[in-house]
């Protein structure tokens, strides 16, 4: 009997207050589930088939920390509400002769029960969800998966540890609150109400400062993959900053509204503004949590959506035509017009024997090398380029004027030592380009277009094209530069791209045929090239779809998880506030508030605070834009308008969804506060 006493009391307490505990346990469950899924993605091998799996996994590993911190803050917020509600009960126990120590024991058992239930439910939900996610992923990638339930023991272990710590902290906080208040103040705590918080300037300013630093970091990070840790520090700073700004900022905001008498003393605003001021601390925390989750959803949806919908343009950029051939040469003498003519007719012969007439075809010679720009000088010696300079180096490629004019249908002319310059993803501001151990070119004109170029698109570096009068003479000096292995830096190639006008299946067949034909060494000898790279848009498309389809899918899964958490928070907020406001609305109905006025005042409250988290989330998103763009660049995607479009669509979709959820839950709130009398 003695052993079971406290657990029994605790279980009873939970059962009797289930309308308070149910939303709390649900919220905990949601948090555990979210954490487990992120952790699962980080440690399981589900992502292995993906390119960049390692990067993704480290993102999720760090992301799990973000979720843990977020969960801790949010659960503290929800638990404080619960404690406040229970204080009266504990005060009564205290007066009836139960010591603080005994109450602490009840609290311990209560927390243990909540922890067990919510962690068990959360893990179960997380495992089920992740299994479904895995099956879906396999479907997208057309990989075989076993259908037995897969659990990542490491993820389970981490979830247990993390939430063990969080629940322990919650327990200590509850005990602290009970310990430092007298029995009488406990008894009255619910009725006396918390003091309306003063707008705390210091916290608000600290929040703004955190946001500012985080924003600064976000905008200045050049390569988020290398600076992943800094990136996540920025994310955590944003989360904390959001909480501080929301909590103290919203109090100040409501105080201002209250000062404005013509606004405040209106039937719609009077009740809503005053009750917002009253519980702004907690309200602010709820809003901040919604804001953080909204940001996560928006970033995920916008970036993966952009990848998915941008893949066609990426394919077109990377593989400009149905069939793309790239012949490479060892010697600059092979680059002569005569040689190229021979090669071209050789290629056309091959096509003719297969009954293919090339369409939209274009050809050009190109000589590529990497260089680091200092002012107007280009350093091409790799030994002199330091690690940090590497990201500000460029891909240079030289194209002869004749080829340029032929491809673009222009009629440009160039004198000796002159060049046309085209910069891709960058600006080049000087009038001359001097290679430090080679030629120097005077820029005659900057041009703003060239045909799509697979190399530039694929390369994470920006590129600069120089159209020179004559390739052979112009780059002679550069041609001799070798790296420390004795290999030539300059890469010489002839690009030959064309459409076929045949079915996708025929295109893939042709691609395989041509690859076999040109890789043949007799062909190499006859046509005078050293190696060949072939690619087919259609063939590559399948790979692209598998990769980006699964990334997009992953994005949807994650967004869904975040949305579930956001819905739980909104629901929790409405229900808990509803029970808190019940007595208040009962009084107001007695004094003469009609049900219609209750509705109106709820709507007014909704409109006042509804947009706050969304606005702040959009602001976060704007500052995350550069980082996300950099991440997308790593996937060869540089379509800013498309990214902007997916961002805006994501915001619109989320706003719509958010409105619906808020409407539905505000109905639940309304039913609680207006049905107060019938409830008895």
């Amino acid at each position, binding site marked *: 009997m003695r052993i079971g006493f406290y657990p029994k009391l605790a279980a009873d307490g939970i059962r009797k207050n289930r309308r308070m505990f149910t939303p709390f346990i649900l919220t905990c469950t949601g948090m555990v589930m979210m954490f487990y899924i992120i952790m699962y993605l980080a440690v399981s091998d589900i992502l292995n088939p993906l390119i960049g799996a390692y990067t993704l996994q480290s993102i999720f590993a760090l992301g799990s920390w973000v979720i843990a911190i977020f969960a801790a803050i949010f659960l503290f917020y929800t638990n404080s509400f619960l404690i406040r509600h229970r204080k009266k009960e504990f005060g009564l126990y205290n007066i009836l002769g139960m010591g603080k120590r005994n109450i602490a024991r009840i609290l311990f058992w209560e927390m243990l029960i909540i922890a067990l239930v919510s962690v068990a439910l959360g893990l179960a939900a997380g495992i089920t969800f992740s299994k479904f996610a895995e099956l879906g992923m396999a479907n997208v990638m057309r990989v075989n998966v076993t259908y037995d339930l897969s659990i990542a023991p490491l993820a389970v272990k981490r979830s247990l540890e993390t939430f063990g710590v969080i629940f322990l902290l919650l327990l200590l906080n509850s005990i602290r609150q009970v310990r430092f208040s007298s029995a009488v103040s406990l008894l009255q705590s619910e*009725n*006396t*109400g918390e*003091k*309306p918080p003063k707008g705390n300037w210091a916290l608000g300013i600290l929040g703004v400062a955190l946001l500012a630093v985080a924003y600064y970091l976000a905008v200045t990070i050049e390569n988020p993959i290398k600076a992943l840790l800094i990136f996540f520090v920025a994310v955590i700073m944003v989360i904390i900053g959001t909480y501080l700004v929301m909590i103290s900022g919203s109090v100040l905001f409501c105080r201002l509204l209250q000062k404005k*008498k*013509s606004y405040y*003393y*209106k*039937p719609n605003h*009077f009740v809503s503004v*005053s*009750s917002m*001021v*009253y519980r702004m601390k907690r309200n602010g925390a709820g809003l901040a949590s919604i804001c953080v989750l909204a940001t996560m959803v928006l970033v995920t949806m916008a970036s993966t959506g952009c990848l998915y919908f941008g893949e066609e343009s990426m394919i077109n950029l990377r593989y400009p035509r149905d069939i793309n051939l790239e012949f490479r040469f060892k010697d600059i003498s092979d680059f002569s017009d005569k040689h190229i003519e021979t090669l071209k007719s050789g290629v056309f012969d091959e096509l003719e024997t297969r009954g293919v007439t090339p369409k939209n075809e274009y050809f050009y010679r190109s000589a590529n090398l990497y260089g680091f720009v200092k002012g107007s000088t280009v350093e091409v010696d790799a030994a002199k380029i330091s690690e940090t300079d590497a990201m500000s180096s460029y891909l240079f490629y030289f194209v002869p004027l004749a080829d340029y004019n032929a491809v673009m249908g222009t009629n440009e002319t160039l004198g000796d030592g002159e060049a046309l310059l085209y910069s891709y993803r960058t600006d080049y501001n000087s009038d001359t380009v001097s290679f430090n151990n080679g030629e120097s070119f005077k820029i005659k004109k900057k041009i703003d277009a060239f045909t799509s170029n697979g190399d530039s698109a694929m390369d994470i570096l920006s590129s600069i094209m120089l159209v020179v009068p004559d390739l052979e003479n112009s780059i002679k000096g550069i041609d001799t530069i070798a790296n420390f292995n004795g290999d030539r830096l300059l890469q010489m190639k002839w690009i030959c791209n064309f459409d076929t006008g045949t079915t996708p299946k025929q295109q893939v067949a042709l691609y395989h045929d041509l690859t076999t034909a040109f890789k043949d060494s007799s062909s190499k000898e006859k046509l005078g090239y050293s190696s060949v790279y072939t690619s087919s848009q259609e063939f590559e498309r399948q790979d692209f779809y598998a990769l980006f389809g699964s990334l997009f899918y992953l994005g949807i899964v994650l967004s869904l998880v975040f949305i579930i958490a956001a819905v739980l928070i909104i629901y929790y907020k409405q229900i808990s506030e509803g029970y808190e406001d019940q007595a*208040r609305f009962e*009084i*107001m*109905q*007695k*004094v*003469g*508030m*009609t*049900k*219609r*006025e209750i509705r109106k005042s709820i709507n007014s409250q909704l409109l006042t605070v509804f947009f706050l988290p969304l606005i702040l989330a959009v602001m976060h998103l704007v500052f995350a834009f550069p980082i996300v763009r950099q991440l997308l660049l790593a996937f060869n995607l540089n379509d800013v308008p498309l990214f902007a479009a997916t961002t805006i669509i994501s915001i619109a979709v989320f706003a719509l969804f958010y409105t619906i959820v808020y409407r539905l839950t505000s109905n639940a709130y309304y039913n609680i506060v207006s049905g107060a009398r019938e409830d008895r």
Partner: protein
Amino acid sequence: MSILEVSGLKKVYSTRFGGNKVEALKNVNFSVEHGEYVAIMGESGSGKTTLLNMIAALDKPTNGSIVLDGRDLAKIKESAAASFRRDNLGFVFQEFNLLDTFTLEDNIYLPLVLAGKSHKEMNDRLMPIASRLGISQLLKKYPYEVSGGQKQRAAVARAMITNPKLILADEPTGALDSRATDELLKLFAEVNKLGQTILMVTHSVKAASAANRVLFIKDGEVFHQIYRGESTNEQLYQKISDTLTLLATGGMKK
């Protein structure tokens, strides 16, 4: 001219599953004249609160009618009941029913704000009332920062600020100590002298002895009534005590 006419009032409650029927009020008849101060007394369970709820249009009678200032309450729709209460009645409750999210000032403004009055008009109305009730200095405080008596005065101010036809007070002294009780009763008497009609439900003899007329309810009927006439509060107190003793010992109906 009567401001309130209650005639043949009957209220039967059915228990939740419709089994037992409880007759809370059998047949209540009385009227309140304009400017009167009436106390209704009775033991617990005698139907006092039921009566008050029906006069406040919070509940519908089973039979009979309540006419307030020429309007039959039975004919007021549920949806209009709240605004009717707001415009015509002022309430003072035992447990004050002040909202802890509002300052005292905003608590008092509540019915006016709901009625859509401008801040200036509200302020103009509040100032004289607040100074008469002695709470001018407390207006910016929150309910949990003031004493019970002060809370009740704020509640009285909230009841008065709409210039109601009738103030309904439900055990207004129930939660007050004796000093605060005296103050409140004095306040009611003063307000009444200014022409405010008050109907108070109480089981405190002291509270009832401040009224000009006392109605006694027993077994769902008005059993007896006493007019103050020329009596002082103390004399009325004595009369009420005697009547209650009579009621308790099952004395005969006069």
